């Protein structure tokens, strides 16, 4: 099952927790200096170490399938679009995804549903073990893990939590939150990481600092901040609803109406309406917007991924689609998934 279709801890505010470890191998050039032969050698040798993982050669993959992996947050956008030899080793059951020949030789990523950073960290460490055992991992006692980009030196770990923050966004609190987090060595990014826009009021909160702080401290510092943000977001949601319950319910019900009755819907419009419907599904006890019980946070988050262009194209058979075709297909998919109507 895909991570977004599972149930999880504090999903009303946290969609997923992710830990990524970057590892380089002694004796192999990095980035552009790595030859195609060396890249293939790394990909093949990784296969010997990673028993039980499925291998996908991204340089042989069609661009739509590759982009769909990025839309599902399983690989980085750079990895999906690169042309050089590279492979993904994946274990969907464990939520482990190991990119070979991304910016660093190995990017080991573990993704879990909801708020469970420690679990994601434990899983990433477990997934790393066979790599560390099969390869001489580049490490220095003073600088830690040696990475292609010096900004990642140290633990070379990025722990991130994907958060849904509609109430704080609408209150205009994100810029000040971002400043406060920056002082704690944390950063706020958009839904698709570095350089991406914050759509759907979804943000990724992650550690910025990697040197001079241990992995455990990084996780604990991030969780301390995330606990605080969850608390603030929940309070802010209840505050907004209690001030004007009719307007809040009306906005959510209208958004739900659009998602379940439109015959054509763009990705942008879908994501705008998605915010209110997800908010209503998170506040069932306090807000009556008439959204059926069958519309769960899991079904909503699944629709969020399925409505992205590449995933939607794949779900429609993978053939060429115009934006108009996708808008029609998206509306049909939403009616089926959220409205209980037949998916025709």
């Amino acid at each position, binding site marked *: 099952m895909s991570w977004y279709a599972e149930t999880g801890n504090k999903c009303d505010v946290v969609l997923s927790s992710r830990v990524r470890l970057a590892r*380089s*191998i*002694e*004796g*192999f*050039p*990095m*980035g*552009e*200096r790595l030859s195609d032969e060396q890249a293939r050698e790394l990909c093949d040798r990784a296969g010997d170490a990673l028993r039980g993982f499925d291998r996908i050669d991204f340089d042989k993959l069609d661009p739509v399938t590759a982009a769909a992996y990025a839309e599902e947050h399983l690989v980085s956008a750079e990895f999906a679009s690169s042309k050089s030899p590279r492979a993904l080793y994946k274990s969907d059951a464990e939520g482990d995804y190991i990119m070979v020949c991304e910016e660093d030789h190995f990017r080991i990523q573990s993704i879990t549903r909801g708020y469970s950073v420690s679990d994601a960290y434990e899983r990433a*460490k477990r997934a*790393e*073990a066979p790599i*560390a*055992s*099969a*390869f*001489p*991992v*580049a*490490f*220095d*006692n*003073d*600088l*830690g*893990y*040696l990475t*292609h*980009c*010096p*900004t990642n*030196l*140290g*633990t070379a770990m990025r722990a991130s939590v994907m958060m849904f923050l509609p109430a704080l966004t609408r209150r205009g609190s994100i810029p000040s939150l971002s400043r406060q987090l920056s002082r704690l060595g944390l950063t706020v990014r958009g839904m698709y990481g570095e350089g991406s826009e914050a759509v759907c009021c979804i943000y990724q909160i992650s550690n910025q*600092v*990697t*040197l*001079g*702080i*241990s*992995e455990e*401290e990084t996780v604990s510092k991030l969780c301390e901040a995330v606990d605080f943000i969850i608390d603030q977001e929940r309070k802010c949601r209840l505050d907004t609803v209690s001030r004007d319950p009719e307007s809040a319910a009306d906005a959510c019900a209208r958004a739900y109406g659009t998602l379940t009755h439109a015959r054509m819907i763009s990705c942008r419009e879908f994501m705008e309406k998605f915010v209110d419907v997800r908010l209503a599904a998170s506040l069932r006890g306090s807000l009556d917007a008439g959204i059926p019980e069958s519309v769960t946070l899991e079904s909503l988050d699944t629709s969020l991924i399925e409505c992205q262009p590449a995933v939607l194209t794949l779900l429609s058979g993978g053939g060429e689609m115009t934006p108009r075709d996708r808008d029609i297909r998206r509306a049909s998919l939403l009616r089926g998934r959220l409205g209980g109507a037949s998916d025709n």
Partner: protein
Amino acid sequence: MLCEKCGKNEATIRYSEIVNGKKTEMALCGECAAAMGLGTDGGFGLGDLFGAGTLFSNIFGAIPDARPQYGASHIEKRCPVCGASMSEIAKRGKVGCAECYRTFKSELAPSIRRIHGDVKYVGDAPAKSEAENQLLEKKQKLESLRRELREAIEKEDFERAAEIRDNIRKIDS
């Protein structure tokens, strides 16, 4: 061209600084550059790694760029593993391989300090490889057998000593 700071010596270094997007340039002699704290070791001084135009220059504000451009000659050091030079690393803002961190340790140190602060690594060390583990296991086994051998000889248990010696030979081969 004379040094724009002292006006006496021949300028051997062009120094450029970008502050809030505004670039100022100066031609300096070696003495004035050193007085301003601009190293020229191997042709590249502090800050050169993330020189003007790289991603990091925007993040870290003022990035000084110092390199000999007026008549100073030098042979560029290259990484023995990937062949990268410091100027190539500076241009990309990324190293060519892990060995670059050792080859250009002193040149990279100021930039690493600027990014991360004056801190040392704290955290997990990499797990040993299978080959390293086997080697370690073998070493420990041999040490233990040699200890047993000494004890057997001390006790004049030569039969046992011969047995241990054969075991040591077997493992050592």
